[in-house]
């Protein structure tokens, strides 16, 4: 006669809970694999530094993991990650001696991308973007890299649409003002007008 194991009610509950957790982890893991490269890129633009970007990315996903059920139910994972990236990046400076927690092998900074048709404009503009205050840089990254609308940018940053407009305008004005004349796209467009 084959013995049939009868599980205690508590054990059944534990099995169900552990199944639920495993399913949740699998779902999160799939999302992590699909989105991490993209999130790292945004983090890099926000911070301007590869190591900080890795920290930001890991922290953002960790916080998403802690809130996974709630955030997933609202289908707002990408938006949640963006907000965490921005908030974390803005608050990093308050932590003077923050030790990095690298679990993965450190990777070198990416080599600068040289565009054969780029006579220095891109590098100069990138330097200028990095010189902007963090909040101004975040507005530009969300508007011009993530291509969010003003309303979406406002929601991500937790500010009004008017603030996004004014910060964008100020940041662009600063870039125009600081861009060397011979690299200034505005000046170049003027040259093109003359060429016609």
């Amino acid at each position, binding site marked *: 006669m084959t013995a049939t194991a009868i599980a205690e009610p508590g054990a059944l509950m534990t099995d169900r809970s552990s199944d*639920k*957790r495993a399913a949740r*982890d699998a779902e*999160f*893991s799939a999302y*992590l694999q699909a989105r*991490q*490269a993209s999130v*790292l*890129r945004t983090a*890099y*633009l926000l911070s301007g530094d590869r190591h900080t*970007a*890795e920290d930001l*990315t*890991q*922290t953002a*996903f*960790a*916080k998403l993991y*802690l809130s996974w059920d709630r955030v997933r139910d609202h289908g707002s994972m990408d938006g949640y990650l963006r*907000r*965490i990236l921005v*908030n*974390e990046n803005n*608050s990093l*400076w*308050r*932590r*003077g*001696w*923050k*030790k990095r*927690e690298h*679990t*993965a*092998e450190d*990777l070198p900074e*990416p*080599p600068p*991308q040289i*565009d054969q048709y780029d006579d220095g*404009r*891109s590098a100069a*503009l*990138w330097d200028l*973007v990095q010189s902007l205050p963090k909040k101004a840089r975040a507005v*530009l*990254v969300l508007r*011009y*890299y993530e*291509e969010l609308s003003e309303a979406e940018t406002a929601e991500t940053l*937790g500010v009004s649409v008017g603030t996004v407009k004014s910060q964008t305008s100020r940041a*662009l004005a600063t*870039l*125009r003002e600081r861009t060397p004349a011979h690299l200034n*796209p*505005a000046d*170049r*467009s003027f040259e093109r007008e003359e060429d016609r």
Partner: protein
Amino acid sequence: MNDLDNELSRTMRRHAENLSAAPLAFDDVRGKATSIRRRRQLAAGVGALAAVAVIVPTAMFAANTIKADNGLPAASQAPPTVSDSNSPAPTEGPTMGADPGALDVADLPTGAEPRWTLVTEGFAQASTEDATIRATSRGVVVETAGETFGPFPSSTGLARNAVANAVAWGTDDGNVMVWADGSSEPYTISTDFGETGVRVVAVTGTNCQEGTASDCSYYVTRYDMEANQQESVRMSGDGSVTAVDPDRAIIEVHDVSDSGLVLGLTSVDDTEPGSCSAVLDPASSGSTPLWETCKHTLDAFSPNGDYVLASDPYHSGSGSGVIAIYDAHTGKLLADRIKKADDMASYNSAVWEDETHVLFSAYQDGKWSIVRMNVDGAMEYALAPAKGGEDVPWHFETR
């Protein structure tokens, strides 16, 4: 889009898309999540330390102060002694500095030495008259004059009652352990929390010995992995559990005053970013806050319960760049200093030194110092700056 808009988009894409994929594994993320959760629980690390009797680091800052290799004073290894609670006599007056809202400790007058024990090993230490209790990576160890107990597996900090005769901690298997002076050994209060993270954040009462005579309450925070939520409860010596306040407004207790006021988090939101905190008097006004704020995390009552020490509302990494003090009764903000620039200070732990002074370990310009701050925000060195690395050289003993 105009030319600059287009150029900006192209430039960002060129730089970002040159990055290789991040080798981030699920286990890495889960480990970080655990670490964040623990930091949040210990965010009150500040809170867990606070008020109560002043402990003098008898050996540390005497003329023959022991110097560690890194030039920083080493912590006293001798059991600390409880002193009276007289305020230290500063050699110069503390200063508000050029900006009373800035956390800038670059140039302060030097006052009296700290009246609190600094700890260099483990992550928490608490003392009673009969024992020294240390929380280390191996677990909690209790050392008395003649015996050593433990290590008891534990990943949490320690909490001590106001009269300093009992220390409690949570164990990894979800129970609460207590050392009470007069006992022959630590004892366990069993809970039905299961194998979930349990942390004792405060102990009230004066007789915590095992048995029916105990008048102690243990404020315990547990994290429910399945429900993915955290709650604080009040537990009696017999293991019975009640809500901290009737409507469970406080989701995480950080401190409890002698008069029964409770302070802690009422909400946490990573996307705001931040948290809200409140002070409650559950006995007289239930779950209705006496006052609340979302500007800071409320961490710890002063020894007499008149003031509240507060920090950054957004704890997720090491340290804080915000330190504040409130009037505990009215919620009036009395001192508020913030790291306003990269070259200003951040700190890793703070403690009430006496009724009106806070000590915090500050890091600025590659140097560590211990700063004493009055309740009005005036500051002085309790330990002058010395060169140090990124590793935190010491933290304060748990009250």
